[in-house]
């Protein structure tokens, strides 16, 4: 078990390092240097050279990489080209909103998706099963921004039930602040959940169907256990293991969806920050945001592995490394 945990943590560290390295080199491969925007069309080689030297961009790439890693370990992600404030500070301001949005979408998907998948498996072609098939197909077919725009048009513009954008109204305090946060959260949350719940619940359904056909479930029924005990203790406890793994893998999709959703709803999280930074060619911000997202996804996957460890006794006694 210790071996399992150590190996998973080791893999997570390796994954973060690879993501960091790819991010670093990928951004430097992009056409148009960082000075293009700062010089704003002025042709002044001397000024350009000075700017490059200021940011250390005149060094060989490999030296830049080493320097970058050294700074990163110390928590220094550089300074935004655009706002001149430290990248870590900018990210720190925006991150809570993304965590709130993606986190609550994750929780709702879980809390609604699992029972939906179970209900669909237990009674095939019943109402939950048909609803699930609709969500499954719609979720696959729909592009997050189109759904977001649709929701905006109907519920914010036409009906006026929810605000059009942002995360919270200005100058509110106490309970009103909370209410404002929630009302701003609902539409982006809805579009994220709508897209993610179908595939997830379908996985639960498929696994559940397989497990319900297993010999040990028939045996449990033959022992006179209540159908609730059979479905939850014997069925779901087995079906949920592959579903949890999938959830971890899907987290990347969830984060990607959050970026698009945030942009449409002008939700001030990491997603819209990335969108803004791309327009400004703000390399340090992009770099920082990508690294942050990579770390988030890797951590979530690590967490998934540890949850699987709790759920699957075979992992705990170390029959599989």
């Amino acid at each position, binding site marked *: 078990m210790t071996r399992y945990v150590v190996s998973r943590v080791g893999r997570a560290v390796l994954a973060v390092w690879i993501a960091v390295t790819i991010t670093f080199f990928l951004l430097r491969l992009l056409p148009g240097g960082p000075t293009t925007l700062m010089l704003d069309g002025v042709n002044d080689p001397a000024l350009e050279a000075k700017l490059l030297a200021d940011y250390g961009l005149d060094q060989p790439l490999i030296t830049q990489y080493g320097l970058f890693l050294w700074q990163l370990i110390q928590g220094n992600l550089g300074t935004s080209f655009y706002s001149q404030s430290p990248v870590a500070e900018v990210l720190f301001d925006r991150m809570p909103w993304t965590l709130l949005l993606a986190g609550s979408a994750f929780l709702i998907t879980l809390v609604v998706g699992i029972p939906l998948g179970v209900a669909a498996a237990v009674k095939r072609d019943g109402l939950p099963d048909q609803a699930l098939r609709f969500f499954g197909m719609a979720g696959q077919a729909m592009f997050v921004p189109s759904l977001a725009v649709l929701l905006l048009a109907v519920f914010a513009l036409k009906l006026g039930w929810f605000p059009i954008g942002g995360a919270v109204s200005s100058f509110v305090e106490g309970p009103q602040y909370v209410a404002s946060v929630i009302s701003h959260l609902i539409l982006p949350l809805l579009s994220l959940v709508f897209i993610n719940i179908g595939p997830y619940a379908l996985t639960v359904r498929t696994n559940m169907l397989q497990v319900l056909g297993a010999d040990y479930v028939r*045996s449990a029924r033959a022992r*006179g256990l209540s159908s609730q005990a059979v479905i939850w*203790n014997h069925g779901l406890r*087995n079906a949920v293991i592959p579903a949890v793994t999938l959830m971890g893998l899907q987290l990347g999709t969830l984060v990607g969806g959050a970026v698009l959703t945030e942009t449409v709803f002008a939700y001030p999280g990491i997603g819209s920050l990335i969108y803004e930074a791309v327009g400004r060619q703000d390399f340090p911000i992009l770099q920082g945001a990508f690294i942050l997202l990579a770390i988030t996804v890797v951590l979530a996957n690590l967490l998934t592995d540890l949850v699987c460890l709790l759920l699957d*006794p075979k992992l705990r*006694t170390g029959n599989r*490394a």
Partner: protein
Amino acid sequence: MSDTQNVAEAVPPVSEREVILDVRDLAVDFTTEMGRVSGVQGVSFTLHRGETLAIVGESGSGKTTTINAVLGLLPGNGDVTSGEIFFRGTDIAGYSEKALRGIRGKHIGLVPQDPMSNLNPVMRVGDQLAEVLLAHGKATRKDVRGKVNELLARAGLPDAATRARQYPHEFSGGMRQRALIAIGLACQPELLIADEPTSALDVTVQRTILDHLGSLTRDLGTAMILVTHDLGLAAERAETVIVMNKGRIVEQGPSAQILRDPQHEYTRRLVESAPSLASDRMKPINPGALTGQITEMPVILHVRDLVKEYTVRSHTDGKRKTFTAVTGVNFDLHRGTTLAIVGESGSGKSTTARIALRLEEPTSGLVEFNGTNIAHLRGRGLKTLRKQVQPIFQDPYASLNPMASVGEILEEPLKIYRLGNRAARRERAMDLLEMVALDASIYDRFATELSGGQRQRIAIARALALEPDLIICDEPVSALDVLVQAQILELLMKLQTELGLSYLFISHDLAVVRLIADQIVVMKAGEIVERGAVVDVFTSPQHEYTRMLLDSIPHIASRGTAG
């Protein structure tokens, strides 16, 4: 065995005891894509308190459908269309799921077939037993631990308190079946249904498990339905035997009578082909077999000092260790004869077979095929060897590509070796079908449309396609029904005589080995413990382990005289 008889004589005759289960004219239909299909028809039988009844039949005979109907566990497309199932005087055939819940586990226990798949893998074994006791009010949260330990201990699990806290994957097959027996008998039911309770276990384990099951049900006065495909086992363990075929009871009566004097033609065929009942090698007998000339035939496969080690990671401390699968194995297989390697799971017999097929390389030792050491053969030499040594595997459902037609399956080896043109390959495939006694019309069918026996014939035909000298048969009949087993063994014998084939025959089933082998090698824990001509080993086994294996075959004779 003598135990069973003594007790049976001590208590009043079965027929005077209380009737536990009375099934009358039961019929079950299944709704399929092809319309309504009859599962069982006109099934009637009576079971008294403490009586053991065996239902014997091949797959598809309706034996499992019958017990599923009694338990109310028919699959969704199955219905009881007529008849009654009186359990202690009440007809439970039409009971709702909720009403049945009060009976299942509490009054009717089940010991399922495959101990590997019938315990919930993510739940502690003790919790699965506790769950039943709690559901039927046989224990409280406070005293359930103690009762669980007591029941597990009674089922023959040593150190029950520790075992109760473990998960199924930490148990061996035999231990799991003991746990399942403890669960089945937890609430002291009046009736226990044992569905092929030992067919997934090693023979030596089978015997102890069945003995234990017998003594537990006897002590508790539990009536038992023993479902099995093995007539010998049924006769040894039950007072009454029901023989089912194609959804109907073809014969029922006292077990001794059914074996000694079977009335129905189907039962007669079953008795004749049950390998556990046969006493001789199958005809046609290899000319050399009886006169001791086998050893004068040239040696086709010569194995000396074979060792195979694997590096494994220990479960407990994660350290790398060497696991010896096979060590010091020597044998000679003579051309045109059959050498059987017999042993239980983990004995190293399959590893030896894989090395002989050159699917694996030995750690050390000599494997000579026709005088060439093939142990580490590669490239062109290996390709030639593949042509001369062909396998037949255990499970014809898994060994044939479901997406390929029979023709494609048979012609594939010819294509790989670029033998003949399209027409010639087709002709060869037709010849092969004829050799294994299959109709030419099967050429265009898919393996999924065929029965188990037909599939195994295809697998044999495929092995013959390249005209090999040596065929390695890894449990070739253990996935098949008794009657089909006999036919496949006959086919293998016929082909051996006609084509002069040599067989290396891997099996756990001594009864089958007796029918087909000339020489036998008994393996245990990676080593050979006994070897010799089949006749000698069967009549005077030298090693204790061989004797134990032989004793594990259900013997009809001993029961037949008891009446």
